């Protein structure tokens, strides 16, 4: 995760124009079945369902700073749970949805206990293993999952008393009726004190821990919530596609969800859905025109997006304004903000604890040298060697080694980008 992505991740408060845009978007979404043909509308259902999956990925990756390739596991648990419920118990959609959410959230809570101890790329690695192992489990546990043949489900009846939904347009409206409230809930959670705490953990876990937040419990809560959300997406997948097999929950889908989040912009929920639309259209719509070479195109789009859109589609809005202001400084304001915070709460850890702060911190120090020694020194009593360096306050990570050594040689400004990782 980049520092720039983090600063841009908090969506700006919605103004009057924003409200209008939201209303227009909802109206367009509701009116869609009367505007387009049935192939397009079934593609739109797919975008909404996978958009929910991408939002669950985004909640962990963008908001809590835990990059994941494993949400397909919970998506799959939800899909299989919904399919089995539909076959054996009831066609009623809300029941399938409730069962899927409950089961996938429970599985996420149990697996999460082990996973949320990891951070960063290790987390990505673990969740990738979870996703793939869920795929193999779906393949091999054939008495429950039907193996590679998968499980089909009957048409969905949204609530008691309604008829089966036979037309793609009605299915889409049912998916939309679940999608919109869930989107609102997730957006609200991302902006709630809980969501803010998650962003805080992402930006500076040590400080959050020091001021008394139960970090592990928050992350497990986020993981469980995201698992339930992915499970809801799984139930809607059954409603709209009426079929699930291992290939629907495989690595490609996990990669697509993460790609959608990155293209959309980390931390932005509407960006995640927009990114999903880009991904689904690229793979299924344009890819269909290119003899099924959709994944190839998707891979190329993704590689280009990683290079050219460091903050995704959501970052485009702010990129130009930001560039005009900062004029060359890599992470404007971060070093200063980190130092001020370190002085206030006394934990002595600033952005450098995250590994890439060496550069931002050093830049800040160079721009504003008098503040650096005082703040770091006051914040940290144990590490005398680091008293002159910004990063010296955290003894256990590599940047501190550089800072400690560099700090003995001279003032903080001397450890420029040449020594940073």
């Amino acid at each position, binding site marked *: *995760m980049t520092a720039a992505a983090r600063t841009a991740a908090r969506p700006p408060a919605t103004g009057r124009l924003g409200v209008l845009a939201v209303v227009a978007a909802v109206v367009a979404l509701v009116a869609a079945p009367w505007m387009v043909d049935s192939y397009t509308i079934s593609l739109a259902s797919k975008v909404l369902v996978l958009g929910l999956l991408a939002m669950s990925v985004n909640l962990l990756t963008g908001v809590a700073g835990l990059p994941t390739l494993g949400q397909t596991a919970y998506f799959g648990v939800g899909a299989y749970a919904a399919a089995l419920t539909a076959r054996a118990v009831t066609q009623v959609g809300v029941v399938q949805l409730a069962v899927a959410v409950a089961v996938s959230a429970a599985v996420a809570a149990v697996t999460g206990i082990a996973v949320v101890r*990891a951070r960063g790329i290790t987390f990505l690695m673990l969740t990738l293993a979870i996703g793939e192992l869920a795929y193999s489990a779906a393949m091999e546990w054939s008495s429950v999952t039907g193996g590679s043949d998968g499980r089909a489900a009957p048409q969905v009846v949204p609530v008691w008393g309604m008829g089966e939904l036979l037309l793609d347009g009605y299915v889409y409206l049912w998916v939309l009726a679940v999608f919109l409230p869930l989107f609102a809930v997730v957006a609200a959670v991302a902006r709630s004190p809980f969501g803010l705490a998650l962003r805080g953990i992402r930006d500076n876990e040590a400080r959050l821990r020091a001021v008394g937040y139960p970090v592990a419990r928050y992350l497990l809560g986020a993981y469980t919530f995201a698992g339930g959300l992915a499970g809801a997406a799984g139930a809607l997948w059954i409603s709209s596609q009426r079929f699930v097999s291992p290939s629907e929950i495989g690595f490609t889908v996990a990669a697509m969800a993460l790609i959608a989040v990155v293209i959309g912009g980390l931390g932005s929920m509407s960006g995640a859905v927009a990114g999903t639309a880009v991904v689904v259209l690229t793979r299924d719509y344009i890819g269909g025109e290119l003899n099924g*070479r959709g994944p190839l195109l998707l891979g190329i789009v993704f590689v280009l997006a*990683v290079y050219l859109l460091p903050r995704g589609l959501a970052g485009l809005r702010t990129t130009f304004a930001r560039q005009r202001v900062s004029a060359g400084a890599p992470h404007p304001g971060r070093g200063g903000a980190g130092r001020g915070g370190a002085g206030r709460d006394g934990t002595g850890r600033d952005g450098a604890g995250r*590994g890439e702060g060496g550069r931002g911190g050093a830049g800040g120090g160079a721009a504003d040298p008098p503040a650096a020694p005082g703040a770091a020194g006051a914040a940290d009593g144990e590490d005398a060697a680091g008293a002159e360096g910004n990063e010296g306050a955290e003894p256990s990570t590599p940047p501190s*080694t550089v800072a400690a050594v560099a700090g003995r040689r001279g003032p903080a400004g001397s450890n420029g980008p040449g020594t940073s990782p």
Partner: protein
Amino acid sequence: MPVLGWLDAYIVSIVDGVAFGLLYFTLAVGLSLVFGMMDVLNLAHGTLYLGGAYVAYLLADGGWTGLAAGLGAGVVLGLAGGALLAALTQPLAHRGHLDQALLTLGISIIGADLFLFAARGETLPAEPPAGLRDSVEVAGHAYPAYRLVFIGIAAALALAVYLVFERSSLGALVRATVADRDMVRVLGVDTRKVLYGVFAAGAVLAVVGGVLGAPILGPGPGVDGHVLVMSLVVVVVGGLGSVRGALLGALLVGQVDTLGRAVAPEYAAFLIFGGMFAVLAVRPRGLVSLARTAS
């Protein structure tokens, strides 16, 4: 003697487990060292294996020259692939490790689709040399001769990697870079050269693993993802940045994979899951870990 009877029933699976374990080791060691050193998770590592297996398929002519040509081409391909991946991820180093991992993810998707195009979605047969196609007797069971030879070659490779890593001064430099990259840099070593070297060596190992492993786990759709995940589990179980850990983890995972599949076919995936989480619960950094910067 129930124990002997059990052993007799599963001896083939156990030997298979050693073969697959060593196969996973050839991938895991590069993955683990690159990750332990510069926190770059190379999600295209399985693609390197797939490339090697595909080269073996293309060059296999049923004789030893085909295998030799495959190995030569594999080394070249590995060096080129490793250099390319290192060169592509390097410009993103200042943006953080997630962007680097995402880039390799994009590359792996491109690689998988190109392979799908070339192979038309089928698993391609890569025959071992003619002399090794038959079965030999292992404790009273017929067993493919090539797998035994593979176990021998892969064990020799693993031993060579282990000796270079643990006993040579070059290995000491690599271990030091894993443990504390910045301190090594401060001592005046250009750590980028070490990083590139390990990246290239890891890629060569993965591609050579693909060339040698093609008759066992042939080039097919999804193989790249499978070997990537198995070697990730190996790295998680064994511990980051350690050759010994990778070897130990690989042999364990190989056994759970094949023996588990033989004993409880429906639950093999859960066994690997459960084993990984059990190790994580007891030793969060894996069985053997040198890397201090695992976050």
